[in-house]
């Protein structure tokens, strides 16, 4: 917003300040509303196509070149669908839930810098704001599940609440590491701190573990495989949005995808250097390149998410929660210690080594403690 504001000020000197500010605000909001739903439409296509190819299918290929217009066709179809509300549903809450699902996701995107200096609102508490609003999405899930008066929905809602609450903790703790080292909550500061050769936080031991923790948490909060139990289609039909159809269903889908986009964007910002990359910098060209870098990283993360969805089974509820409380949470606490060591040991190689060793050892211990409960080696007799 500020970039647009400065740019407008140079362009139209003399115009009243509030008008410039208003225009800049509109441009920033319009950009968000145009780009991220666009990306959402694109990734629905990419997901279907990618899953198709993974599964030896073609994926959508009828509407437009290689099926690219499929999201438009889907949208049109879903808009013309009948909107069904169960008779005994709580009408108002049922109506409100999809809206509540979309808004926090969009709000979280507000603080993400998509290019050099391109952030809709540069809050000095950026990351905290993003986490804060994204927690509100759990309410939407619960509202939907509860208002539908469907037992599958209710089960889905319960699972969603339990899951989001559990994964909130390691996710935030994994972010704390970055905030600690950078010393700022502002997303722009966080990105700028990652300048330099291999400066991305993911290339540091605590960053790698933090990125892993954050990705797990993000997958869980966005309800993606292998943590997609709130809407596990083979178990509880469609979870909390079982009773939604038509546009409300589309809103849920959008909210869900936007939430995962928001989490991924924050992940890119915090660990993958955000918009940084060769060629990004000030000036129009540099800004465009930096945007390109940001979206390239975002899409790479989404590709991995799709890839995982096409490959792994999902965990069970108790295993999921156990994974959060017994593996991710201790690891994230240790990660904070490791980052502190890294930060305060003056000699970098020594700090590197110490924190890496600490993390590796704790990973090993934790997997050993946890893995045995569930997994055992089997052998089979072959008789004649």
């Amino acid at each position, binding site marked *: 917003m500020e970039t647009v504001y400065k740019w407008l000020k140079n362009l139209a000197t003399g115009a009243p300040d509030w008008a410039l500010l208003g225009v800049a605000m509109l441009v920033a909001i319009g950009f968000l509303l145009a780009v991220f739903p666009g990306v959402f439409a694109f990734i629905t296509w990419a997901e279907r196509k990618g899953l198709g190819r993974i599964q030896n299918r073609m994926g959508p290929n009828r509407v437009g070149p290689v099926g690219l217009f499929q999201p438009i066709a889907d949208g049109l179809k879903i808009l013309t669908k009948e909107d069904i509300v169960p008779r005994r549903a*709580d009408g108002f*809450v049922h109506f409100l839930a999809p809206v509540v699902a979309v808004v926090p996701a969009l709000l979280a995107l507000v603080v993400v810098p998509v290019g050099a200096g391109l952030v809709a609102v540069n*809050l*000095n*508490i950026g990351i*905290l*704001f993003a*986490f*804060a*609003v994204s*927690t*509100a999405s*759990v*309410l939407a899930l*619960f*509202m939907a599940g*509860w208002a539908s*008066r469907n*037992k599958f929905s*209710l089960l889905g809602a*319960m699972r969603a*609440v339990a899951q*989001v*609450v559990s994964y*909130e903790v390691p996710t935030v703790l994994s972010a704390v590491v970055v905030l600690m080292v950078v*010393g*700022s*909550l502002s997303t722009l500061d966080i990105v700028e701190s990652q300048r330099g050769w291999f400066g991305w936080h993911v290339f540091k031991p605590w960053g790698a573990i933090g990125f892993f923790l954050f990705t797990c948490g993000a997958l869980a909060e966005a309800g993606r495989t292998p943590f997609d139990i709130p809407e596990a289609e083979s178990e509880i039909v469609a979870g909390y949005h079982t009773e939604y159809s038509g546009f409300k269903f589309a809103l849920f889908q959008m909210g869900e995808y936007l939430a995962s986009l928001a989490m991924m964007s924050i992940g890119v910002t915090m660990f993958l250097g955000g918009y940084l990359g060769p060629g990004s910098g000030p000036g129009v060209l540099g800004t465009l390149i930096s945007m390109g870098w940001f979206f390239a990283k975002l899409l790479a993360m989404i590709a991995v998410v799709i890839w995982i969805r096409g490959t792994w089974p999902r965990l069970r509820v*108790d295993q999921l929660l*156990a994974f959060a*409380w*017994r593996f991710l*949470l*201790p690891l994230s606490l240790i990660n904070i210690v490791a980052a502190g060591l890294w930060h305060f040991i003056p000699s970098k190689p020594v700090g590197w080594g110490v924190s890496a060793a600490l993390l590796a050892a704790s990973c090993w211990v934790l997997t050993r*403690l946890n*893995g*045995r*409960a569930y*997994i*055992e*080696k*089997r*052998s*089979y*007799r*072959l*008789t*004649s």
Partner: protein
Amino acid sequence: MNAAFWILAAITVAGAVLAVSQRNLVHCLLALVLFFLGIAGHYFLLRAEFLAAVQILIYIGAVAVLILFAIMLTRNVTGTEIPREILGGKWWTGAATAAIIAGLLAWAIRADRTTATPSGAAVLVRELGLTLMKDWAVPLEILAVLLTAALIGAVVIALEEPPHPNPLPRRGEGTPRPLGERPAAPSSAQTGEGKSGGAA
């Protein structure tokens, strides 16, 4: 005192009133969330963005969800109408309490001589952190120890191995019947290493 304040105030008050007047527990909760949001909006208005974010994170993300859990665990989840008797016609007691508290607060604000006007610039998180770490270090540490103890306790409870869900068969635990047509004995029972279990 601008329009934003009045709108937010209206939302906050409406949320508060709805939260105590609704008869459906979940509706109450949602109204409460509205109220929290209104408060967060006020913090934003006062340029206390950090406080606003924390308000959302803790009150909506944690407290409301905690209440949700309570509702889901204790009450009839599918039909959460609470009977009117809980209010029991004693609403005026509550109203009187509210009035007294409001009066006390108003008096306190009027009597307060310190002029804590918003400074214009946002309160920097760094300053907040430094204040907490310097001036309030001891209470903070006590709190931290308390919370860490709680966290460790939670982890310990979670680490406790639940009994494996292995239901006992209800029908027959009897000895296996000999199968009539089975050949004399499995002649060459050999142990084949199945493709299994890399990790254990």
